[in-house]
């Protein structure tokens, strides 16, 4: 398979291992472009893309925009606060209007799960889900896998431990689906109130004790803790969370010595992860960001740019 036979990228649950492999391999050649002095190729010249961000985002939005610019696509970006959403226009009407301006691909971040499906069913343009509610964040999942794959040379049979608020995390869901498809073992840890109900459906194990969860892990990923979860009664205090579930050097002793430390950002330093770990030798937090641009270039190329032979 040399091209993605799909219109949209909505989630990794529906994506095959072959497709993921194609994207990761393509991302590798895209990263090579990023290392050039002149980071610009004409691949998507004349193609039009809309970045529609109904939720605040720094790195995902910048990452997509740079990917588009490096590939010479024309793009416009609309942020939630300045969009017609605040004037009461429906999402469908907003996008239809933009579509008739000639947009071929819409990158959307939205606070409601499933909104990327809703959009994809209502427009002819390709839709890339840049995070929909608590559902999926497929490009983040792909960039995390890309980072692990680059560092470890494989994904198969690696043990990846994800610590934190799995229940509300689209990043966790995409990582779980993607990593499982690629043959990795996934263990999640954190307070039970932050775990999704019936989590067996993901084919993963839960361990309430972080020290046990990270035992022999090849990768340990911390998730961002939303402070408002405390207000909704899901855990008692940030202090207790940091003490019981926060990642620190001591807590990671049972992990493999060369275990990668990951975080999708932005980090609450001192809560879900200590600076010592986040900035330490095993941390690949910044590599994740670089990989993000490469993965997004790969996706745009595969969706809009045609086949590898071109």
């Amino acid at each position, binding site marked *: 398979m040399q091209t993605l036979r799909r219109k949209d990228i909505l989630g990794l649950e529906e994506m095959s291992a072959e497709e993921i492999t194609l994207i990761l391999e393509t991302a590798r050649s895209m990263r090579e472009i990023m290392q050039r002095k002149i980071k610009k190729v004409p691949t998507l010249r004349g193609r039009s893309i809309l970045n529609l961000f109904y939720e605040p985002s720094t790195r995902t939005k910048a990452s997509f925009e740079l990917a588009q610019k490096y590939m010479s696509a024309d793009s416009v970006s609309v942020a939630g606060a300045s969009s017609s959403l605040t004037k009461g226009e429906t999402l469908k009407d907003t996008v239809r209007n933009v579509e008739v301006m000639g947009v071929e691909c819409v990158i959307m971040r939205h606070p409601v799960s*499933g909104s990327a499906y809703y959009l994809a069913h209502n427009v002819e343009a390709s839709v890339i889900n840049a995070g929909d509610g608590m559902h999926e964040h497929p490009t983040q999942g792909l960039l995390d896998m890309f980072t692990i794959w680059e560092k470890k040379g494989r994904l198969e049979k690696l043990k990846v431990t994800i610590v934190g608020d799995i229940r509300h995390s689209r990043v966790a869901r995409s990582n779980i689906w993607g990593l499982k498809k690629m043959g990795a073992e996934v263990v999640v840890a954190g307070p039970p109130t932050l775990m999704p*109900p019936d989590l067996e459906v993901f084919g993963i194990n839960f361990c309430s004790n972080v020290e046990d969860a990270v035992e022999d892990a090849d990768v340990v990923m911390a998730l961002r803790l939303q402070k408002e979860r405390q207000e909704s009664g899901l855990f008692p205090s940030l202090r207790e969370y940091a003490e019981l579930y926060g990642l620190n050097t001591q807590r990671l002793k049972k992990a493999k010595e060369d275990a990668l430390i990951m975080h999708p950002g932005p980090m609450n330093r001192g809560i879900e992860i200590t600076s010592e770990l986040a900035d330490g030798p095993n941390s690949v937090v910044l590599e994740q960001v670089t990989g993000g641009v490469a993965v997004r270039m790969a996706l745009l190329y595969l969706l809009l740019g045609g086949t590898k032979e071109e």
Partner: protein
Amino acid sequence: MSNLLIKNGRLIDPLQELDGVTDLLLSGGLIEKIADKINPTVDTEIIEAEGLIITPGLIDMHVHLRDPGEEYKEDIISGALAAAAGGFTALAAMANTDPVCDDPSVVRYVMDRARDAVVKVYPIGAVTRGLNGKELAEMGRMKRAGAVAFSDDGKPVSGGLIMRNALQYASGLDCLIIAHEEDLSIAAGGVMHEGETSSTLGLRGIPSAAEEAMIARDLILLESVGGRIHVAHLSSAGSVELVRQAKEKGLKVTAEVTPHHLLLTDRAVKNSGYSTNTKVNPPLRSELDRQALWEGLFDGTIDAIASDHAPHHPDDKDVEFDFAPFGIAGLETTLSLLLDEAFSGRNKKFNLPLLVEKLSTAPARILNIPGGSLKPGCPADVTIIDPLRGMTVNPEKWYSKSMNTPFAGRRLMGAPVYTIVDGRVVMKEGVAADYSRIN
């Protein structure tokens, strides 16, 4: 009013324990006679019903008509036409309109408008003023004006004390309270059933416990202060068990289930790609829950089937999942969905007499309204069903102003072919008589 003779149909009337081919004569708006062979007189209109099924007029005891206030979604006239098209001769209209039906004047408004409706419309009054959950509505005065039951449906009565007072007060007037059972603090703003599917879809879940905890509370209150409760739209196995135990104790409790909870699970949300037509409250639950609902129906724990017809304008549903209102419109699909289930053989215990019991006999008994039987002297409310008539669910052709159904496109076997109210044919072969336009 001429006589109407329905000949050679299979007549099913659970109340009289009748199930056999016979003739049925309607005269003067009442059931006149059931006999093997009835000879027509000169002024008798005849419906040849060989191969068809004759049942007491079906009663939908849980319908939202949106009138007054949101007539663009549905009004009393369009809702009644939809009911007739779906084989119902009567319906009970919930109180969560705008203004809320919490006052005799709104009860009378509904009854006045219902005079132009093709089926009988019974108003349900609110339990609390403005559904505010704080002060009791004037149940006694509303009952005198014509309200047949009381419910804040759409919302639970969250406060335990006000529910206790409502039950105790209503017991003195022999008023039925229909309870929407949902602990909102446990439901926590969820949008679908909490379980495997909500986990993978990333949608906020409503645990079964939100319903069960409230049912448990209300049954305890019922036991302590008396009264009558009808539990609306049961959705979980635990709820069925709670009602079962309460019935065993002899409490005055009845319960209903909707066709969509009997036929669908939360997988429908996923399989439909987040279609907001699968967003309903209480939510579609797990397969285990679904099976338990059928068991409850078979063993008598669940007395009735009601559509919980909750019409919404297409624009209201054509939004992101979280933003869509809850509700499935069911007046025009309920009977055919159940007939299809009965005829398909998928559910061996589900047969036509049971269907008639749950859709006609029981609702009439619970609401204490006329109908529910073909006994001579009863109102001539009759539904005639063609078991061999196929139908495809096509909301674009509905009489209802809404289109929100997860069953669109589904091919079903069995459909109502005549709806007869007080001896007058108000629907024939899918075409309803619109009196509001004639008058």
